[in-house]
Structures are given as structure tokens and as C-alpha cells.
């Protein structure tokens, strides 16, 4: 088990870490984008005084960075609300931005690259033009990519604000329409909750935030934030667990949204890896702890490690590849997948579209 996972499970173990173990812990945590979250976790566990100064500086830096992003998000939410109001639409926030605005513990130390929002599919064009009128522009993509997004994906091509630089993903549902599971976005919108004191700013309900997080984690093929996402789920589920009756409601909701599969995996791995307290009846009903999926376990056991060289073994490359294939398999029917992959093979993307802290920049900008 990776050092980071050990500490997330048992934070008081940091008391026994040597300087070289702290070194490794910080490196793994940075690669998992969890510095800020670990800082809050250690603080909550009462071991802040046991952090030596150097590693503490790195953890604190992560927490400060996250605080700064949360500050921007609170600001951005109001701009977005006013922009969408021009089209008569409420702002419905998803993922990280929702955790921040709803004041959930899952916001703790959470970094994010973009704001994710949900609009009804029928109003997508209105939302897009209202956003464009308030300064959001679509990233430049070739015609194929435009069609890929608009015809087959659950979101518009990423938008960016031309002055503030914030990145925005406009979703009309939470999984691609071509995927096997088809959660009804109308149900998500119907159950969304207004943020107290902020009329027009809404988030998904706690149960739906959990289900979206699970669907995202277990249907996407990009492993670098998977452990971060798993800790999101852990924090969301611990909040849900404060009221035992909410577990049964979560289960019913999952079935209604066709997301009981992702929920089963979410509970299986949060419970196994992060010791998330889940009632036995829920684990049983969903069959969360059943064996019989050795390949899936071997894959998730690897991609849910911090993606740092120290956690790699000979099967890691295969696990990452398998995750990618599985994500695409779940995302599209075979004929579409074949067509899409063939197109990407014949016309490989000219530029990498990865953004975030590891984005390639010119060395001289930093000097």
C-alpha cells in the first residue's frame, strides 16, 4: 500500500515518519494533487504539531493554493449566475465548484482546473449564447472535434473567459449520451438545491453529487486525479453517513439514475482503500464486497495509487492502458469507438490539450 494511502487511512501514523518518509509522502501527495487536502486531514486528526517545518510548508502551500481557487470560484459563480440569468436559466454547479459553494467537507484542499455546470439539453444553445455574451469563448478545435463534442459528448467544448481566464465545462448530462448508462439529467436538475443566501446558484443534491463523482471516477480514463476523486467520494460519503437513513435513499436514487454500477464500485473501493464507513446492509445489497472481479481489482488497485514513480510496478502501464480502453468502451458503442479511434490515429491532435499545474510552459517565464 502506498505511503499516502496509509497516512490517509491512519493520519496519526505521521508521528512515526522519518524525514525521508516525509519526503516520499510529500512527493506522492503532490502527484496525487492532494497536498492541501492532506494538510486539512492532518490538522483535523490533531497531528498538526507533529508535522516537521519543511513538509508542513509544502502541505500548507497546497492548502493556500486551494483557498485561493475557492475564493475565485465564489466570485465566478456570481458572474455565471448573472450570465445564465439572461437566458432565464439557473446556475447548477457540479463537482469541485459545487463542493465549495455548498460548503461540503469535500471542498477541503480541493484544487480544480475548471468550473463544471449543468444546463438542460434543450436549452444548451441558449446557455452557450448567453455565456458568449458575457465573455466566455469556446476553445478552438477542428471541425471533427467540434462534432465529437456536440454530437457524442455530454458537454460542450471547453470554454474560457476572455478576461478572467477561468475554464468552464458546460454539461447537459453527466455521462456521454453514447454511453451504455443513461442517467436522466432532468432528474438531477429537478433535485438540485439552492445555495442558502445565493438565489439562482444551485448545486446537485448530496446523493447526486456522490453518484456523479462515482460515474466520473469509474467511467473516465485519465488516472492522474483518480485518487483525488476517491478521497472526494470518501468525504461526500462520510457527510451522507451523518444521517443513516440517507444510505437507502442513495441506493434508490442510484437505481433510478442507472448508476448503481458505478456506486457499487465507489463503495467497494472507498471502503477497501480509505476505510469509508458504509453500513453492511448497503454493501450487501449492492454486492460491493463480492469477489470475482480480479482484473478490475488489479487495475483499480494500481490506478488508485498516487501516480508517482515510487508506486509503480510492472503491471502499472497495463493498468493505465486498460483503464483508458475501459473508459472508451463504456463511453461509446463499438462501431463509434472504432470510427473515433481510427480518426484520431489518422489525424493525431496537433497540440496537447492538457491543462493544469504540469502544463508545459516556457522555462524563461519562470526565471
Amino acid at each position, binding site marked *: 500500500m502506498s505511503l499516502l494511502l496509509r497516512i490517509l487511512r491512519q493520519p496519526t501514523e505521521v508521528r512515526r515518519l*522519518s524525514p525521508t518518509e516525509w519526503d516520499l509522502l510529500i512527493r506522492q501527495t503532490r502527484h496525487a494533487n492532494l497536498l492541501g487536502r492532506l494538510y486539512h486531514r492532518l490538522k483535523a486528526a490533531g497531528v498538526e504539531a507533529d508535522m516537521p517545518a519543511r513538509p508542513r510548508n509544502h502541505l500548507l502551500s497546497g492548502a493556500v493554493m486551494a*483557498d485561493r481557487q475557492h475564493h475565485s470560484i465564489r466570485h465566478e459563480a456570481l458572474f455565471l449566475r448573472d450570465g445564465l440569468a439572461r437566458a432565464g436559466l439557473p446556475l447548477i454547479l457540479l463537482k469541485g465548484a459545487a463542493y465549495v459553494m455548498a460548503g461540503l467537507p469535500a471542498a477541503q484542499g480541493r484544487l480544480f482546473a475548471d468550473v463544471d455546470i449543468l444546463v438542460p439539453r434543450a436549452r444548451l444553445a441558449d446557455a452557450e449564447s448567453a455565456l458568449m455574451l458575457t465573455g466566455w469563448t469556446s476553445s478552438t478545435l477542428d471541425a471533427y472535434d467540434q462534432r465529437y463534442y456536440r454530437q457524442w459528448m455530454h458537454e460542450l467544448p471547453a470554454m474560457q473567459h476572455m478576461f478572467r481566464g477561468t475554464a468552464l465545462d458546460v454539461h447537459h448530462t453527466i455521462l456521454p449520451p453514447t454511453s451504455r448508462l443513461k442517467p436522466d439529467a432532468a432528474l438531477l436538475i429537478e433535485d438540485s438545491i439552492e445555495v442558502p443566501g445565493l438565489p439562482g446558484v444551485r448545486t446537485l443534491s448530496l446523493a447526486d453529487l456522490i453518484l456523479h463523482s462515482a460515474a466520473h471516477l469509474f467511467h473516465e480514463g485519465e488516472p492522474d486525479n483518480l485518487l483525488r476523486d476517491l478521497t472526494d467520494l470518501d468525504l461526500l460519503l462520510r457527510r451522507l453517513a451523518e444521517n443513516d437513513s440517507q444510505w437507502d435513499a442513495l441506493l434508490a436514487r442510484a437505481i433510478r439514475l442507472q448508476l448503481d454500477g458505478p456506486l457499487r464500485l465507489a463503495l467497494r473501493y472507498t471502503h477497501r482503500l480509505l476505510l469509508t464507513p458504509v453500513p453492511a446492509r448497503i454493501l450487501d445489497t449492492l454486492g460491493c464486497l463480492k469477489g470475482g472481479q480480479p482484473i478490475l481489482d488489479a487495475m483499480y488497485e494500481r490506478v488508485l495509487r498516487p501516480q508517482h514513480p515510487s508506486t509503480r510496478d510492472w503491471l502499472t502501464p497495463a493498468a493505465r492502458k486498460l483503464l483508458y480502453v475501459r473508459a472508451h468502451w463504456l463511453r461509446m458503442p463499438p462501431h463509434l469507438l472504432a470510427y473515433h479511434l481510427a480518426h484520431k490515429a489518422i489525424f493525431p491532435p496537433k497540440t496537447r490539450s492538457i491543462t493544469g499545474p504540469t502544463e508545459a510552459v*516556457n522555462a524563461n517565464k519562470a526565471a
Partner: protein
Amino acid sequence: MIVRDLSPATFRERLAGKGIRLAAGPFNCRLQSGVSEIADELAILYAHHPLIDDSEFVDFHVAIEPGRGLRRWLKPQAHFVVDAVEPFTPLPRPQALPMMEWGLNWCITAYSQHILVIHAASVAKGNRAAILPAPPGSGKSTLCAALVNRGWRLLSDELTLINLQTGDVMGLARPVNLKNASIDIIRAYAPDAFLTRPVHDTTKGTVAMMAPPEASVRAVNTPARPAWMVLPRYRAGSEATLTPMGNGTALMQIADNAMNYHILGTRGFEAVGRMVDECRSYSFEYSRLDDAIAIFDRLAAEGTP
């Protein structure tokens, strides 16, 4: 033990292997390089820095790596890697040494939100620091290099670090980056200082690094108190003139040059405000280094602001 205590052969071997572990002010760094030709100059630039034990925590694990495959021979490149992450596009291999320095600056800027990091040079006399924030081309590094060769202590050439709790300027004492004409100016002005061979055709033009003075490296862990904020500007043929600057303008100058002012929020504002309160602020125009040094020495002689 300091870097100079290692034989050149040991230094080269460690640099290519498990890395040179040294302390640069508040940061422990492990430097590795698969580009062997930078070893000798790197060893001199960091000659007086203390080596740290293998059992200590390292803040930045950085490496310069040659390209892979054909790239090793065809237009060879240097890659900067910090713990398996490559934050920059590669540069031509002859720029490997400056790239190591730029990369370390990037690490400090990207990973340090527990301190205020200002794009500024800082030098000290006694326990009082002069902070020189300035845009590129203002002659900041030239002035800084001249001052530290005339009795001022080098705190930092590129990034000034402010402790948020105490308001102190923390020492870094890493090499000074000189560009274009200033390379020959400093060679003539301080013939005893070690300068690396110039590296041509970087995006900043020709660059060379000057080794920090031994005394500055030895005193690196002694913080200094901000006393003067001087915004320098080199103008050919001008007389050295110091013009007092209002506190508001000074605050904006520091805030504009602080790399993480916007990230620190209120704490950043308070830190910059405290600095401005404690400093006498000036804009400074100069052309001859001797005149400039004389003015700085006069400031230092004036007593506590």
C-alpha cells in the same frame, strides 16, 4: 561539509548518479544531471553551499536530462525534470546550466505559498536589506552583482523571499543571472568573481551566472530586515539619482512584482503593507556602478530609517 569538499570526480559521479544534495537557504535541493558537461561550472557556482545528509527531507528533486533516442545526437536538447514532472518545453543542450537555475526558480515560485515570493533582487548591509524589484532590462542583476562585490551581502538575485510571520527577508544566496552587456561589465568590475562561460541564443539573449560570494553563502540563514525598497533603472549617461517614492506607489511596485501576491490574499497584502511601512522607498536612475555603490553605501550609513 560543503560542495567544495567533494573532489571534482566525486561531484561528477554524484551529479550523474544519486544526486548532489545541498541546502540553498531555506530549501533543500537534490540536483541530478545526465548532461555531464555542466558539472564543473555547477560545482563552482555552489562551491560554498552546505551538503545535506541522505537522511534529510528534500524540498526539490530536480534533474537535467538529455533527450532520448535520436534527439541525443540530432540537435541535442536538455529537459528539466522535477520529480518526474517536466514543467517546461526542452531547450537546446548548451542551455542546460541556465535551465537548472531557471528550473529551481520555477520550483520555488510554484511550490512556495507559505512565504511571499517577490521577483526582486535583495542585498543586505548588517541586518538591513535593500529590495530591488524591477522588470527585466532595468539593470537589477547588474546592480546586485556589483553591490555584492563591494561589501553588500547577497540575499537573492532573482527571487526575494519574505517570511509571512516575521516580515524578514530570507537569504537564498544562489548564483546571479547576468545577461548580455552586463556580463562584460561585471567581468571588468569584479575580476575575481567567478562567471560561467556565456551561453548564447537563449530567449534572454546571452546569459552567464556569477557565483555568490562565499561570505553571503555562509551567512545565508541569517535573515535581514527590509529597510529600503529601491526601483533601479539603468539609463546610459545618467547621473546617479535617488528619488523618494510615495508609499502607495511603493506598495503597487512590490505587489506587481510579487509572484504569489494574488494567491496569498489578505496575508499577501498585509506582508507587502508591512514591508512598505518599514522601508524607505526610492526610484533610482544610474549609469556608472561606482556612483551607484556610493549612493547605496550612503543609505546604509544614514542609520535606521
